[in-house]
């Protein structure tokens, strides 16, 4: 038994009666927590909560050995349940939007056609746009570009992951590699993020979006 579980160590007890009791107590805690946290959101009803709690219990039991007692057990368990339920909610909301469609209708247009700076646009912003577009087209692979495009359209990583049939971690890595490439090229040109953000202040230029 995992002693770090404290009062919850019955979850890993060989005594099935004790284990079932602990499990139904955990189930109740998760039902209450998910109902309180998500009950008012669109698409959430009793059946949804039940399904999510069931999936969460399986995941929690599967990961029980990894609990290290660095927080209350319930905090750890609720965090896992929220990850599962909220990922599912985001997917429900987005699953009629396909990445292919997004890509076809929203391909980032090539640099030469994209640069239409207004006359009073700060030169840093103009140059930044050129560097970003150049890097996006010459240094990012197709999947990195796709994640960046989906990010710009606020598409959740859960949905990108499902459509590409990869994990949410893998989507994050594609985005991370893309960001690192963009950052590297901006820094090569002598720009830092804080300097560029200052150029976006209202007094620095007139926005023409």
């Amino acid at each position, binding site marked *: 038994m995992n002693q770090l579980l404290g009062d919850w160590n019955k979850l890993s007890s060989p005594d099935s009666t004790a284990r079932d009791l602990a499990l139904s107590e955990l189930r109740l805690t998760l039902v209450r*927590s998910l109902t*309180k*946290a*998500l009950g008012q959101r669109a698409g959430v009803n009793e059946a949804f909560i039940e399904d999510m709690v069931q999936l969460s219990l399986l995941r929690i039991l599967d990961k029980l050995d*990894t609990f290290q007692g*660095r*927080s*209350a057990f319930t*905090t*750890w368990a*609720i*965090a*896992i349940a*929220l*990850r599962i339920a*909220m*990922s599912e909610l*985001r997917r429900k909301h987005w699953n009629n939007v396909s990445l292919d469609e997004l890509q076809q209708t*929203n*391909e*980032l*247009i090539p640099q030469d056609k*994209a640069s*239409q700076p207004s006359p009073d*646009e700060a030169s840093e*912003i103009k140059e*930044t*746009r050129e560097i*970003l*577009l150049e890097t996006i087209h010459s240094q990012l692979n197709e999947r990195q570009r796709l994640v960046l*495009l989906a990010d*710009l359209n*606020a598409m*959740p*990583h*859960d949905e990108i992951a499902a459509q590409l049939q990869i994990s*949410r*971690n893998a989507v*994050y*890595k594609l985005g*991370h590699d893309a*960001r*690192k490439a*963009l*950052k590297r090229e*901006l820094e090569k040109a002598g720009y830092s*993020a*804080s300097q*560029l*953000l200052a150029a*976006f202040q209202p007094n620095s230029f007139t*926005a*023409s*979006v």
Partner: protein
Amino acid sequence: MKLTNEHIKGLVECMGVTHEQELNCNECLDLVPEYVEQDIQKQPIRSTLKPVEYHLALCKECRDEYDTLRELLTDTENG
């Protein structure tokens, strides 16, 4: 799709919080329970948990889940 100034600003903001090494979403979730308890109790966040802060600044899914967890636990603590 034209890269609008809003897009560029968003990307530059991301550059500002991009680190060479970052936690992925699962690694972040492993540390979130400890981080959220310290955050709620207004304890200084341990330096080993700093990467959680970086990840939450960049990943809107983990941020959304974190905010929901924090609100839930704060409400629970306050009865």
